């Protein structure tokens, strides 16, 4: 069984800063971490491997610094590590990113199960997983809370909806975008850590994928970020009152609003 896990390196959330001049995220000197729900996807993949056998293949796309998340993936139980990086891919939006990742999957020989986090904490679009599934022509399930591989090879899952939890199953190959923290992070053993040191990271560039600059990067992106800004609230006032005084204020304000 080939389980491909897509992981992204993101700024640690409390470190996000916006460049006022360019309206883009500042990345210099910012601590970068594995996207939390991708970390859960990885733990879920390793758990599936431990229970049913197979191989966990970790793929990341980004700058050279993103190898750090691949090293973390090796510690957490990934068997193969792939770094997708090419100057042509810089500035890719979710569509172009999904295209690159789908070609990577084809280059690597396909998959049985694809796992990713439901969204990244920097962009928060949640789009790459579903777009990737379209490019790969496989079903996609988002907001996954639970995954089980059945003896007949089908995957039973629980999916978080607005007002209920859906319990269903489907055949593989399929993509699952998992919610944060549904599986406890994998704790490696000494032998896991020794093994992780020996796993080489394989670089994949456009030489391998042969997509070209028109379909990737800024040119291949269907969306453009026009402006990034921090929502600021107008000045607020805070007064501490007791319940009686508070009730009077609420009634007065409500009456004012109605009139």
């Amino acid at each position, binding site marked *: 069984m080939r389980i491909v896990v897509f992981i992204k390196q993101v700024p640690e959330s409390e470190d996000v800063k916006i460049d006022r001049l360019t309206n883009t995220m500042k990345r210099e000197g910012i601590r970068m971490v594995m996207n939390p729900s991708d970390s859960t996807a990885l733990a879920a993949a390793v758990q599936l491997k431990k229970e049913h056998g197979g191989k966990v293949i970790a793929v990341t796309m980004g700058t050279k610094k993103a190898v750090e998340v691949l090293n973390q993936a090796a510690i957490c139980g990934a068997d193969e590590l792939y770094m997708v990086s090419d100057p042509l891919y810089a500035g890719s939006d979710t569509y172009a990113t999904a295209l690159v990742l789908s070609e990577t999957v084809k280059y690597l020989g396909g998959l049985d199960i694809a796992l990713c986090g439901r969204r990244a904490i920097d962009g928060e679009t949640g789009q790459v997983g579903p777009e990737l599934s379209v490019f790969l022509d496989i079903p996609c399930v988002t907001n996954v809370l639970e995954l089980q591989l059945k003896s007949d090879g089908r995957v039973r899952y629980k999916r978080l909806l607005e007002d209920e939890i859906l319990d269903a199953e489907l055949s593989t190959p399929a993509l699952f975008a998992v919610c944060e923290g549904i599986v406890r992070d994998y704790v490696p053993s000494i032998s896991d*850590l020794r093994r992780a040191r020996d796993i080489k990271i394989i670089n994949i560039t456009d030489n391998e994928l042969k997509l070209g600059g028109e379909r990737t990067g800024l040119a291949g992106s269907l969306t453009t970020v026009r402006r990034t800004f921090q929502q600021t609230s107008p000045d607020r006032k805070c007064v501490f009152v007791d319940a009686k005084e508070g009730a009077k204020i609420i009634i007065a304000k409500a009456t004012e609003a109605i009139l």
Partner: protein
Amino acid sequence: MFSEKANKHADNCRFCWMCRYICPVGLQTGKETNNARAKGLLVSLVNRGQEFDESYAGTMYECCLCGACSQDCKTGFEPPIFIREARTEAIVRDVLPENVRMIADNLMEKGNLYGVSSAEIQSKLEKLLPNRPQKAGVLLYVGQTALIKAPEISEALICLLKKASVDFTVLYSEGQSGAEIGDVIGYVAETITAAKNEAAKINTIGAEKVVVLDPNVARVMKQEYPVWGCDINAEIVTATAFIAGLIADGKLSPQKIDMKEVTFHDPCKLSRDLDETEPARYILKSMGIEIKEMFLNREWTKCCGTEIVKAHSPALGALIADGRWGDAERIGAACMVTACPGCFDVMGQCVPEGMKHYDLFILLAEACGC
């Protein structure tokens, strides 16, 4: 390879140095490597390509993991996080110093620091409580240090429990709680597996409370077990808190003991990690003993050096313990009371001439006529 969390703490520690005045090891050796900042610097150097060799590894074990640095840090960083991971890294890279390798092997193969067989541990528990009940309301978890190095403390505690008519038992055999192995090899799967096995054993007793004699073990059971997914179906209570409760409830009525110029050494795991400082003082007060407080007491306590450091580096262990005795001498104390089997063994190895050293439970057992 260090975790993101370890790297974050190490990168922030490496240029700071503010906690150097609080490290019990650095205060005694005067070595620059014996403080948290130096260890953070070494971790960050390894991340930047420096080789992690035996000397780096040795530095990482010259630390009590007492948490005084974390307590002191005004920005919330915790050096024990990256120091433990550095110890794991030392094992992964096979660069453990020989003296540490020996105790790591003891822990991995025999389940304790001292290389004592499980049959011998069983025998010690049987001797402590012959014909132990299979089930009881309270399980007394003794811990390997008390069993092997300070059995008199466990005997005193058992006497007190019997005196108070507590329905209690002990395990047939105690293995790894995760405390010692976690400090030596880090929080890896082997540590967690050992802890899970121990939790499962504890749960077979069906006790409502688990009274833990060793504060280091109590800390791991209270704080790490929930994180590790080791579920103990009972309330974990420190022995000091439990015994203080028995005195408060009138189930133990100690006689007054005439002791002067007494000081109390707070076990670091008890006072700092578990926020427990007053039960031991209450027990001493119940015996009519007034305490002179040392410099660095309660949550600021200065670590004795720990059983682990004593096991792999006896000379360093004695030097650190000596530092704490110095604190006692400076306030004019004539005797020191400790409330942890590890502190009892470590401090007991270098009692200055003219001073006396007591364990809290042994004192109380005498005061209760055991």
